[in-house]
């Protein structure tokens, strides 16, 4: 094993980590590292071990074998956790308290001033509801309150478990904007999600889990290379002229006709350029060419399979 250079030591380093409950392997000999300031998405079926992995990193539970280091320390109940924040998948705050009271409680535990509470409540857009009881909050408001507590004390590491489930599209966008702001100040972000289409453009790397094992991890491009999935090419033509496209394709290429002016076909990454050259030689009639690289959900199904949890 090569010992990493001190300056490049990953912020989170897991080595051969296993965690099992009774007869169930929640996490199985998993090795993974995340650098400081990086954002990583954990994706996998329900029960693939995402939440257990987050708990291990938070030090809420200990691995049966293997080692975990977060910022050079073994995470545990006693370690300094002022710089780590968490947003659980399901959290229902006591309803009889107001939003302000709750965030103040968490701020006091983290030794943060009350002024920060107001600032964060404003950031997540809850200023008007601070003195209302949490039981009157909508799901989105509760989730934003959860986000506000996670941002207390400018944490170095934020772990988010399914953060956008139940948020409407505009809130999701706002949510990711806030997360991106954190990232720009060097915060490391771990996000577990099923919302693949919305995270794919917002994270640096992806780790796909299946039954507690790490199937693959890397950037989206690395995953695409490894998957070797075909690129989709969609060509629009003038109405009724799609044969001019299908004629220049290799005869064995299966193509799908959307309607009388749009045709789509799969193309291997290596052949993409020559296919495009052929298309560009079509003298007239082509109005648009779209190249669609495999998306995260396709990559996910390729690596993790379509099966559901057992």
């Amino acid at each position, binding site marked *: 094993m090569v010992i990493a250079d001190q300056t490049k030591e990953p912020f989170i380093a897991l080595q051969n980590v296993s965690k099992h409950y009774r007869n169930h392997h929640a996490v199985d000999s998993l090795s993974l590292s995340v650098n400081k300031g990086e954002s990583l998405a954990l994706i996998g079926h329900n029960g693939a071990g995402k939440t257990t992995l987050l708990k291990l990193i938070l030090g809420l539970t200990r691995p049966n074998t293997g080692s975990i280091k977060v910022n050079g320390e073994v995470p545990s109940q006693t370690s*300094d956790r002022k710089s780590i924040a*968490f947003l659980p998948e399901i959290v229902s705050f006591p309803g009889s*308290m107001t939003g302000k009271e709750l965030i103040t409680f968490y701020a006091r535990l983290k030794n943060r001033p009350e002024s920060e509470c107001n600032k964060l409540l404003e950031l997540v857009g809850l200023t008007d509801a601070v003195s209302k009881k949490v039981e009157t909050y909508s799901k989105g408001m509760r989730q934003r309150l959860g986000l506000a507590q996670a941002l207390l004390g400018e944490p170095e590491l934020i772990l988010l478990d399914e953060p956008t489930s139940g948020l409407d599209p505009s809130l999701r966008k706002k949510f990711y904007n806030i997360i991106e702001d954190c990232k720009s100040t060097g915060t490391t972000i771990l996000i577990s999600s099923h919302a693949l289409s919305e995270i794919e453009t917002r994270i640096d790397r992806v780790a796909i889990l299946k039954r507690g094992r790490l199937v693959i991890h890397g950037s989206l491009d690395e995953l695409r290379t490894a998957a070797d999935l075909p690129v989709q090419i969609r060509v629009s033509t003038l109405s009724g002229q799609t044969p001019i496209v299908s004629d220049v394709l290799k005869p064995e290429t299966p193509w799908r006709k959307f309607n009388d002016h749009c045709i789509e076909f799969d193309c291997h990454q290596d052949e993409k350029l020559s296919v495009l050259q052929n298309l560009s030689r079509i003298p007239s009639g082509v109005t648009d060419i779209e190249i669609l690289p495999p998306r995260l959900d396709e990559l996910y199904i390729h690596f993790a399979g379509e099966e559901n949890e057992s």
Partner: protein
Amino acid sequence: MKPILVMALAEIQEGIRNRWVIASILLLLVLAASLTLLGSTPVGITKASLLSVTMVSLTSLSIYLIPLIALMLAFDAIVGESERGTLLLLLTYPIRRWQIIIGKFLGHLSILAIAIFLGYGLVALYFVFDDVGTAQEWLGYLLMMGSSLLLGAVFIALGYLVSVIVQQRATATGISLVLWLFIVVFYDLILLGALLADKSHIIQSKLLAVLILFNPADVYRLFNLTGSDISALASGMSGITQSDLLSPVTLIMTLIIWLLIPLMLSIYIFQKREV
């Protein structure tokens, strides 16, 4: 120290917000007031004064009510937070697990203290205006309030023990109710039955004393009903064993042990609990 205080304050705040505090005060106040008014109707000439009679009635009431209030405050403490998901979140904050238990304990104890001292204290005002009771009787009344709080503390700790062991809130509710029924009702019935059936007197007074020490509610009862000669007279308990095993100091020490064991056991089990 600070996380404990933050936790305790949050519990008190929540207790006020969800009306637990006001409900407990009112419950104790209304019942204590009705007992006082009942006790003040002339029932013939006794050597005991009104204050002592009231105190004895309040003791009998507290034996049932205080454990119930304490258990209802406490059974939810860990398992409830666990079900709501707030426990997972709380544990990621700079607070240790023992601090959570101790903080919650201080918070719940304060709620109970407010309820007992306001509920029973306001009733005592009635006697102040009527100028009844000797200094010794007043001391007895104060000791009754203090020991009621201690009894409550024991049952808060027992509630936590239930709360850290079980995985579901509903289970905790059930176990707490059974615990309450057993300690304050069935234990004495079983003991009484055994004494009645025991024709050959196998159960000596020493053994009886020990059996009583094994039940915190009985310990509390004995402390308040035999603590002074007057209350013993008023309660008709003056005949019970005068052995050293059941001296007031022993009784209070026993209650403290009854508090510490479940409290420390709760912390120990909570440390081991998977979240």
